[in-house]
């Protein structure tokens, strides 16, 4: 394998890890709110979170590009803060991927929270646990399967993305060129041998991840 291939693999794993951690931090409160709210906004928020499931990545990528670009609100903000522009940088890729993989993390966690129901939290309250305490000591441990599924799916989905990376990240070696883009390059250059290595690796990786998910966590099968 060439060093550019290894670089792409390393970048992909780095991106997926950072995005997964970020998704757990961002997705958990959203999942909790969606699981417990009686607000009328629930439908709207749920739909927005689920949008990346149906939208072509190019659409999401296009809007993110505009938003993060020099004339977009986020772009103006990052420039004003002296951070420069996000498109075609690793942080930009992280932000785009976080949006793109959000439903894959939020939905399993939300389903787990919903499955717990009200009772364990009421019991915790009668045993002197504040809502914050009960969240950490009861809800999170009971929703562990959802967190596990969410993390695995979020990670795997980020590894597998292509369109949004191309829109936001472009194709900069070591910065935004992830495995899926690298495969595309190899194929364009008719380097089928290298493309085989990476593509086969992706197939194997995806199979192992889904196999693990389906074998050890059968209750979550329907989510995947």
């Amino acid at each position, binding site marked *: 394998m060439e060093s550019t291939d290894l670089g792409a693999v390393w970048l992909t794993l780095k991106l997926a890890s950072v995005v997964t951690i970020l998704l757990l931090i961002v997705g958990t409160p959203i999942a909790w709110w969606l699981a417990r709210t009686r607000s009328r906004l629930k439908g709207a928020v749920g739909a927005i979170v689920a949008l990346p499931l149906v939208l072509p990545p190019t659409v999401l990528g296009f809007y993110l590009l505009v938003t993060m670009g020099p004339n977009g609100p986020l772009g103006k903000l990052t420039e004003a803060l002296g951070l420069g522009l996000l498109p075609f940088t690793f942080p930009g890729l992280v932000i785009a991927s976080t949006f793109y993989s959000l439903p894959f993390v939020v939905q399993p966690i939300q389903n787990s929270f919903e499955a717990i129901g009200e*009772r*364990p939290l*009421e*019991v*915790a*309250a*009668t*045993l*002197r*646990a*504040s*809502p914050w*305490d*009960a969240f950490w*000591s*009861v809800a999170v*441990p*009971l929703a*562990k399967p959802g967190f596990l599924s969410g993390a695995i799916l979020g990670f795997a989905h980020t590894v597998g993305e292509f369109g949004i990376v191309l829109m936001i990240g472009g194709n900069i070696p070591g910065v935004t060129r992830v495995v899926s883009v690298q495969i595309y390059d190899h194929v364009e250059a008719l380097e089928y041998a290298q493309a085989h290595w990476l593509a086969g690796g992706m197939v194997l990786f995806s199979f192992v991840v889904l196999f693990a998910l389906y074998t050890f966590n059968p209750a979550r099968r329907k989510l995947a």
Partner: protein
Amino acid sequence: MSDGIRARFRVDRKDFALDVDLSLPGRGITALFGHSGSGKTTCLRALAGLERAPQGYCAIGSEVWQDEAQNLFVPTHRRALGMVFQEASLFPHLSVRGNMEFGQKRTSTATNRFSLPEIAELLGIATLLDRAPGELSGGERQRVAIARALLAAPQILLMDEPLAALDLKRKLEILPYLERLHRELALPIVYVSHAPDEVARLADHLVLLDQGRAVACGPLNEVLARIDLPATFADDAGIVIEARVAEHEADDLTRLEFPGGHIHVSRRHEPVGTLLRCRIHARDVSLALEPPMHTSILNCVDATVVDLAPTDTPGHVLVRLDVAGNPLLARITRRSADKLAIRPGLALRAQIKAVALLG
């Protein structure tokens, strides 16, 4: 009454209304009894703070938990209470010990009157501490749930039909432990139930709820002996007497004494002197003006008629009797009542055909 429980709740929902104003004793077991939909569980949940009645006042002793007039509402986790739900609801990710320590760890040691080994012993779960909740029987799970609630240093224990989800065998397994709690811990218990037998066996104080209102509230027998109430107990009308085992007789009968006389029952294993609760159904009591001479019914006490009222059973009346200060109910046909000219003040003999020993 500084050690009592005050609970005044008003809830108005489209499909349900609750309007109660209760003053409950700060000791013993108070049963909230009623059919499903009578508001008993809502009442308990409001006491626990799991539901907030839009208009409400709730205080345990001198501690006020809710006073909507002052816009005061103490959230559940700051109330010194223990609650046992219909399903044990143990935390599946914790062992039995972990479950029991959950509340204990969150209370200061100064307020905790009970230690884990003591409570485990009291409820007969000392050998189960390292098990997972999934490995326990229904009865064991419920005992762990009770232990868990007691270890959270409660000033009051709230129980929401704790036996309703269990089969008869498991119920019978748990009842003695509840009686033990009653005897050995000075802790007021509010016990929601729709099972007359449980109420008769456990309660000292009874609140009858019907369609969101408290129709009667008072010491157990006082409420049970009221014949003017809608027939909540229906076919189960009857009173409870506390009798002492007086003598085990040679012909396999045990004589029980109570202030109004004595009754014989099949031989009991309890030693002489033990107090037993017995339930006497109104349908098992018949009346005679003369001491009956030739009868197979052994148990016969002197009684005075206090009052009589119609019942839901067609052609029958309920007669309230006084037996040396204890109430007794008899259900007889209206025809017999007319024939014997049953009227308040009449002295007669009450024959007790059957006695249900509780416990």
